[in-house]
């Protein structure tokens, strides 16, 4: 990945001079001091504004029907499914950082896993909204997709990828929540013990379950934390695989391809890390957490982004290759239509965002400059949305029977719903920053000097 790894000293994971106490105080202060920078108010306000817009868009949707969107025949899926896949993808980085990097013993995950996981949970919330409201009759879809005994004794159709989605996404959400909460318990105890405000004390107390840091507890705690990591790892891979099944199980040219699962997972992580960067860079600046989220963290994330970006690029290439190599007239036309059809600009913008722009990350200068990194990350976020647009819309709008071809355009309601969820995400995230430690305190302590017990001690 990196051309010359050893030519520079490895930056530390935590700036020197920190003790158990200083770590505890600095991180918990964000929550307990009760004072928030202007930045926090601005973003939260903006987020709530957009969330209100989301509410409006959905109310109108329920009143009039999905016809207010741009969907039609042949393009039966539009923004809703694009956004769904985009959000789910974003979620993946969180789980990857907390679970897979834990199994890989990547110490640097410690300072970013907490808010990466939070990001996962809120992203999945946004994602989960779309499959529900994009249906013609959400009030029924809400429960008819779950297997429950009913008077008509009819059941869901388990061969449908949409049902797999229901199980995958709800499982993913539950497990992420469990993982997140487990990680929070000791920190909640810390807040309980540090909080001055009575109400806060009681609430943190309740959620910390009376955690007292007993050695026996720690042993079981560490045990299941590993187990959960082990469970989440295949889970996170399965979720985007299942999402990719929504397409690859279908017969539409541009959907029906075996490369989708790996290429979707890679894309998800790619996008997810980009989003972590997009969040981490401004926050660490605003809350002066450079000590904990060091350039080394940023650089590592940049490397992962670059790596997954290259996998995604490979995915695109092989799609094009097989368009030609399969000698299938529908596949061939599909690729040709993406490149030169009415939506060519979407395709080429996507190529620029996802393949050209991440190449900057080969340079250490870019990897270590928060501003440039932020820019690249934003471009990637856009690019991954475009990728889903190309897959969903551009494949559907010209499939098999030429007489049935059509065009698709999002309406203002489509855009309002999409940006509405972005607002919802920001709102949730900044409420999280206010209410919970955005960095895992107890794990940071393990990085402090003196945290390691010398092996020779006592012998």
């Amino acid at each position, binding site marked *: 990945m990196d051309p010359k790894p050893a030519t520079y000293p490895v930056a530390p994971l935590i700036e020197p001079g920190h003790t158990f106490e200083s770590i505890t105080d600095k991180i918990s202060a964000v929550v307990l001091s009760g004072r928030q920078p202007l930045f926090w108010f601005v973003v939260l306000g903006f987020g709530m504004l957009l969330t209100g817009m989301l509410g409006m868009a959905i109310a109108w949707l329920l*009143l*009039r*029907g*999905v*016809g*207010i969107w*741009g*969907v*039609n*025949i*042949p*393009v*039966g*899926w539009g923004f809703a499914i694009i956004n769904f896949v985009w959000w789910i993808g974003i979620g993946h980085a969180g789980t990857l950082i907390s679970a897979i990097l834990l199994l890989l013993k990547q110490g640097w995950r410690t300072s970013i896993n907490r808010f990466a996981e939070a990001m996962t949970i809120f992203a999945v919330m946004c994602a989960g909204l779309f499959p529900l409201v*994009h*249906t*013609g*009759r*959400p009030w*029924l*879809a809400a429960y*008819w*997709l779950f297997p429950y005994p009913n008077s008509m004794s*009819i*059941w*869901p*159709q388990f*061969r*449908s*990828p*949409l*049902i797999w989605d*229901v199980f995958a996404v709800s499982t993913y959400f539950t497990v992420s929540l469990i993982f997140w909460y487990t990680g929070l318990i000791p920190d909640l105890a810390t807040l309980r013990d540090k909080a001055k405000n009575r109400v806060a004390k009681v609430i943190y107390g309740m959620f910390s379950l009376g955690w007292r840091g007993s050695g026996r507890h720690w042993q079981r705690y560490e045990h299941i934390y590993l187990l959960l990591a082990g469970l989440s790892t295949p889970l996170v891979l399965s979720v985007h695989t299942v999402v990719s099944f*929504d397409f690859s*199980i*279908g*017969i*539409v040219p541009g959907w029906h391809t075996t490369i989708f699962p790996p290429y979707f997972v890679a894309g998800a992580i790619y996008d997810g890390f980009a989003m972590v960067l997009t969040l981490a860079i401004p926050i660490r600046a605003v809350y002066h957490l450079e000590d904990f989220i060091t350039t080394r963290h940023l650089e590592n994330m940049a490397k992962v982004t670059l790596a997954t970006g290259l996998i995604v690029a490979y995915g695109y290439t092989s799609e094009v290759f097989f368009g030609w190599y399969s000698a299938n*007239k*529908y596949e061939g*036309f599909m690729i040709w239509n993406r490149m030169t059809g009415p939506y060519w600009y979407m395709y080429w913008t996507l190529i620029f965002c996802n393949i050209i722009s991440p190449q900057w990350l080969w340079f250490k200068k870019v990897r270590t400059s928060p501003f440039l990194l932020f820019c690249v990350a934003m471009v990637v976020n856009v690019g991954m949305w475009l990728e889903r647009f190309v897959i969903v819309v551009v494949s*559907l709008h*010209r*499939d*098999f*029977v*030429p*007489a*049935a*071809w*059509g*065009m698709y355009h999002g309406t203002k309601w489509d855009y309002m719903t999409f940006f509405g969820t972005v607002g919802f995400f920001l709102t949730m995230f900044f409420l999280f920053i206010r209410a919970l430690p955005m960095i895992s305190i107890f794990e940071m302590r393990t990085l402090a000097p003196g945290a390691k017990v010398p092996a020779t001690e006592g012998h």
Partner: protein
Amino acid sequence: MDFSAIRSRLASTEGRLFWRSIGELADTPQFREYLHREFPEQAAEWNDPKGRREFLKLMSASLALAGVGACVKQPPEKIIPYVTQPEEIVPGKPLFFATAYPFGGIGIPVLVESHEGHPTKVEGNPEHPTSLGGTDIFAQAAILQLYDPDRAKAVMGRGETRGWNEFQSALRVALLQQKSKGGTGLRFLTEAMTSPTIAEQVSLIQQAFPSAKWHQWDPIARDASRMAAHAAAGAPSDARYHFDKADVVVSLEADFLCGALSVPAQKAFAARRRFTDDKKDLSRLYVIESTPSLTGARADHRLPLKASEIQAFSAALAAAVGAGGAQASSTFSIPNAQKWIAAVAKDLQASRGKSIVMAGDYQPLAVHQLAHAMNQALGNVGTTVEYLPTVEINPTNQLASLRDLVQAMSAGQVETLVIVGANPVFTAPADLNFRDALAKVGFSVHHSLYYDETSRYCTWMIPAAHAFESWGDVRALDGTVTIMQPLIAPLYEGRTETELLGCFVDAQNNRSAHDLVKDYWTRAHAKQVGGWTITDPKGQPFHSPESFWKHALHDGFITGTGVGGERREPGGAAAAAAAAGANDAASPLAAPASPAATGGMEIIFRPDPTIWDGRFANNGWLQELPKPFSTITWDPSAWIGRKYAIDHQLEDGDLIELKYRGKSVTLPVWPIDGHPEGSVTVFLGYGRNATGRVGTPADDVAKGFDVFPLRSSDALWFDNGLEISKVGRRYLLARVQEHHLMEGRAPIRMATLEEYRNEGTKVIQKQGEKPPRALSIIPEWEYNSYRWAMAIDLATCTGCSTCTIACQSENNIPVVGKEQVDKGREMHWIRVDHYYVGNPLEPETVESHHQPRPCMQCETAPCELVCPVGATTHSSEGLNDMVYNRCVGTRYCSNNCPYKVRSFNFLLYQDWDTQSLYPMRNPDVTVRSRGVMEKCTYCVQRINYARIAAKRDDRRIQDGEVVPACAAACPSDAIVFGDLNDPNSRVNKLRAQHRNYGVLEDLNTRPRTTYLADVRNPNPEIDGERGSSKLAAE
């Protein structure tokens, strides 16, 4: 409640008024206050202001009327159902009544399905010789016209609501004056008429008012063919062509496979094109035409000449077959034309006595006479061409007749004018200036279904009873008389023509239509009138008038009233005389001697393919039916050649201004492949400003789409001297199909007769891959009871779209409106796909192919696999069922359907509030709501209906017992449905043909709906490759 107030409000209704209840009609303050409580201001804004909503709104209008006008009930008189006796009415069991739907005075024989006294569906009358079960789009859509709440509701006098009695007394006064002077000032204006009862009434009126005059006018007049036949046969006649006996058919712009009254021609032509593995033999159709027509699309060879060139071409052809006429001196816009003349002539000569040369109504008399001459020279008369006595009551040159009337009116000689049916203010040639002339008439009466342009300028307006509300009689093309029986009592204050004309005959005054018609036919049966020899179908006389009447109603036609028996021999002195006379009378019909003289482009007038001359403008089904080739809905367009469009940078929907004879109209342009360059085709019937709320355009641009103002009496169909210029603005045209090329995927497979003879079985199968069934590792499902399947013969399908309307009527398919169509959300369950083959820059190489596309009912249906709630699954008989009430609307099934035959209720398209729509809906079919997917079901309700019958007498369903709506309506029997488990079923026989193939078989969807590949029979001397398999792969 004050009903007269309500009536007046109804009648005076124009523009956007609609109401939710009788209370609102009466407009009482209590109701206003109630409304205010019930509907907050915002409630109104929840409605999409345009398109479909309008349609629903206005439909809700008749909610009140259903109550005010008349509740749905059987008429008082005894009517006889087609099969069962009325006393046997079983709830849920439909009855069929034989009647007729008059079009241009000619009767289309139909059966109307009636549920508990509500007519719901129109079928052809299978026993009637001119229907044999087939219908056309207009007959199918008549049911919506019946329930249209925008129909005229009350007698109007000078814009005021009046009663029928008031009209009668006013009329009596007017007639007293006329009596004194023998009726010199009394004139009648009607469309062509065939009703024997009316014929008698007319003669009675003539006796009462000797110098009264009767004029006729129909904007789509058949004058030229009428005169030519008269001239050829020496007496008022119609030429009848037997396409089933013809080897070679040459159409000189004769669009005989399209539109109303084309059913017999389609049946006969299809009979000669039905190609089987053992009967490899086809007739050959040459079409020489300007505007592309469905007939041209069906042709083996099509020569797109300018309309003005066709006369010269005909003359040259006539000369070549030795029927007089001038040699081909002139040069044609298509260089190939010369080659054509030789080749076609040779072909005609080769099949003397077995060929047809036919001229179209859109060509001048001269062309018709050349055609008749050729038929005589080729010895076709008596074999493939017959001259039969006309079925019309005193046929006349309608244009001349209208001109006389207008002259008389302007001269103030007309004091009392009775207009029945026609809408001359809208449709009369502009130069006649009918409206101003009408203003000079003191007492004018208009009898019409709608309060339209003419009604506005008449002193009296009498609402017409719809055909399905009326007692009456009408003759079909072959002269057979059908007694029209009402399916339902008039919803509004409708009166029939017979009742109106009865007011002019003292003896008939105030007698009901039923009495008048029955009285006439009782006397006719007793041989006192009409000179018919009436027998029962077996040729035996009836034993009593009652049994005759009963049979006549039951069968839907009266045997012995046809004209088939009295063939006329052409030629002879009478003919010559008539010809001479005809020529004078018809001189205005002849095209300008040298059209090029006036220079400019050529303008061609055509009736709109779906709303005709505008009389169906208020019919949502027909408005939303895609026009041929352009697949545009809801709007007209000006057709131009592709090359011209490219040269002048005219794109789809660009507005152009057409300047012609100092008048100008602005229309959206639409380039059409195969359209002659240098010509512009415009369609009559749009831009109505006085019809229902569906037909009256909302925006100002569309208000100007009326092209009648450009049409003058000396050039009814085409003329030169047109200037067009780009306006610079665009107009949104909602089209159903965006792409017309097959992209090498051969959804339509085809081959020429030659290829079949040489390559045999392979020629079709090689055009697509088909994985062997054994390839799949998945075990096959067994279908032991029935295996329903459909086969569609592309060699006989003409793309007339009757199936689409029939399906819409049978399956309660909603109209969605222009905006939704534009978004790609039209709901039709069976659409007609259209593809071009050939080089658009060489119009004569362009071929059009049509393909009806219902659900393929795949055995391994991709749609089913992906439905998360199991809302679409397979039945034990292999039907791909759609469970509406289980569907949550993920639309995944539609995405995964390679044929895209599923349609989705993106919004609440179906109207749930309007009671007036309830009686129109088919009670056997679920009415779908918002957010639900729907699709073709093979008319499963009809399958179940047959199953019940079969179960009752404990047998299997017989072949042909289940006929889906599309198959039943198809005028060329191209659609066949049946059970694959029955080895002798027709569908099995068809699927055994070499031509049989499934679309996208390579996906292994195993469609139950298969197609029989198209076959063309090109003449190698012109272009042997036309319609060949090579083109399919392009």
